[in-house]
């Protein structure tokens, strides 16, 4: 298939289950069965080299779990992930710039770490020259290398995380909510930096966020997730001009829009159900204004024929 020709990452029927049963003894006494949580439940997407694919969705829908599966922090329970690149050149940026940097290390050492592990025989002077260069690339100065993380603001710490990720000369970055902990003005600095780096270095991003406006700004392709599944995936412009899944439509109607504030919205009712006992059939059916009988019994199937342009809904032109 031609669309796959330049793919760097292919994810097929990916699943990840977690055992969330009560401890064995409790189960015996209370006669409770084992319980399984399907955090990721049959997910497919393809990322083209040099592009950004975004995963967007509400808390608990499985975004971070996919990030961990792709980076190899979790093994999948089913399906597969094919990475057509150099595993050593796959790096991750996390949401929390406070927790992800070792507080006892100087910034220079933090940034140099991937370099030291990947290419341990790099001479010291080359390492420090590279650290200086990386600090400059992310908009800090060489002297910042001798400071500790606590001496920096949130946005600066996220720049340090980015510099560290760049140290391993990555081609693919998994970014899990990289700006969610930042104020909007600082977020703008980090997003602009990430876009510039992508252009300059030809990076590919798997970009995770719960913020549709951020995702719109960053992504070429957007996958909207609900309860462990991708309910809709489309190129960014199409997703916004012609959202197909009822959940996507409701989300777009619900989120505050600064350009057209709507004081009298009718918010989407209900809540995201527990992933331990998801609703039967289409898991969105209890909240869906278009749901009909079939939706309660049958799960809209993934169709693998057209990549990155799919909707899982009986009412949206899919059988």
């Amino acid at each position: 298939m031609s669309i796959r020709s330049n793919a760097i990452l292919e994810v097929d029927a990916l699943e990840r289950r977690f055992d969330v049963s009560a401890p064995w003894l409790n189960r015996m006494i209370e006669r409770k069965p084992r319980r399984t949580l399907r955090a990721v439940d049959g997910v497919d997407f393809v990322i083209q080299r040099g592009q950004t694919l975004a995963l967007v969705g509400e808390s608990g829908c499985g975004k971070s779990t996919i990030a961990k599966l792709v980076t190899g922090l979790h093994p999948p329970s089913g399906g597969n992930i094919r990475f057509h690149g150099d595993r050593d050149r796959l790096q991750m940026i996390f949401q929390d710039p406070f927790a992800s940097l070792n507080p006892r290390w100087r910034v220079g050492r933090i940034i140099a770490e991937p370099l030291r592990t990947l290419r341990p025989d790099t001479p010291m002077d080359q390492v420090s020259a590279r650290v200086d260069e990386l600090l400059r690339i992310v908009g800090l100065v060489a002297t910042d290398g001798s400071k500790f993380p606590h001496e920096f603001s949130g946005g600066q710490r996220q720049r340090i995380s980015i510099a560290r990720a760049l140290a391993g000369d990555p081609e693919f970055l998994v970014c899990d909510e990289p700006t969610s902990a930042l104020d909007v003005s600082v977020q703008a600095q980090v997003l602009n930096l990430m876009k510039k780096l992508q252009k300059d270095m030809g990076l590919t991003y798997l970009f995770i966020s719960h913020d549709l406006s951020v995702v719109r700004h960053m992504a070429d392709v957007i996958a909207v997730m609900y309860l462990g599944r991708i309910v809709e995936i489309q190129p960014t412009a199409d997703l916004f001009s012609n959202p197909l899944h009822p959940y996507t439509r409701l989300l777009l109607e619900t989120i505050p829009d600064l350009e057209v504030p709507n004081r009298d919205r009718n918010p989407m009712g209900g809540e995201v159900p527990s992933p331990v006992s998801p609703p039967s059939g289409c898991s969105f059916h209890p909240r869906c204004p278009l749901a009909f009988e079939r939706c309660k019994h049958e799960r809209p199937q993934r169709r693998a024929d057209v990549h990155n342009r799919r909707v899982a809904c009986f009412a949206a032109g899919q059988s």
Partner: protein
Amino acid sequence: MNDIVLDVRNLRVEFPTRRGVLTAVDDISLQIRRGEILGVVGESGAGKSMTGMSILGLLEPPGRIAAGSIHLSGDRIDNLDDRAMQSVRGRRIGAIFQDPLTSLNPLFRIGDQLTETILLHTRLTKAQARERAMDLMREVGIPAVEERIDNYPHQFSGGMRQRIVIALALCAEPELIVADEPTTALDVSIQAQITALLKRLCRERGTAVMLVTHDMGVIAETADRVAVMYAGRLAEVGRVDDVVRRPQHPYTAGLMGSIPSLRKDVAELRMIPGSMPRLDAIPAGCAFNPRCTHSGPRCHQEIPRIGVEQSGAACWLQTQGDVA
């Protein structure tokens, strides 16, 4: 008829530390009328919560109100003792915080917590109070109230807990609600439910609301007027539409430009260089001057203020039309 519910004048909050006195809130004046929602927006550390906590009388020592006054429907409340303030807080001001668990006791059933609060502030009997608790739960949108009233907080989702906190805040029919990031921990679909609920209840009851958040989108959807804070000071105050569409203060304009749009494609987001100064390093004159592309000599010497009419921008470009 004077319908001003909250009147904050020249509020100043200080934290004495070993290295000197830090000013977290500096000369803030705000008014909220009956039935009005005032949004207070700004980046983290701008002083939003300290302003809210001062009004609630919940500043943690050594933090203290160092200057100014706070009046609630004409009564001065910033100099009350703890007991009197506690009663004002229960009866006349309701509080909603980001984490609903700070307002709920994990050991007591939801219904009992509501009933207790109602009994404390009204003359109802226990049975009547429980009826009223169920009404309130219905009003804030809890489904199957008869089944849920005897649940514990941990049995509720985050969104439902926040609904209960709103119900608690409403128990005594307060004149004012201070809501500090009430939707920040919630998902977007739940966020919209909670803001819609807050808006409806306040409209119906004529409650004045101070809605503190870092999210300009929430403010644009919910508030009537907005106060933008920067480094402990007011940068701009005005009607939401005006501030969102035609920001007067260079900081507000930068803030608006840095938010990615849901409609327009921009190659690059507008950036405000640098970051908000720390409290121990606030520059002389306008606190925004190191980051401002319009700054002139005057900006480095004199602090700009919002005029007596309490709307507009604290900027020399606006007030006196000259930065020189």
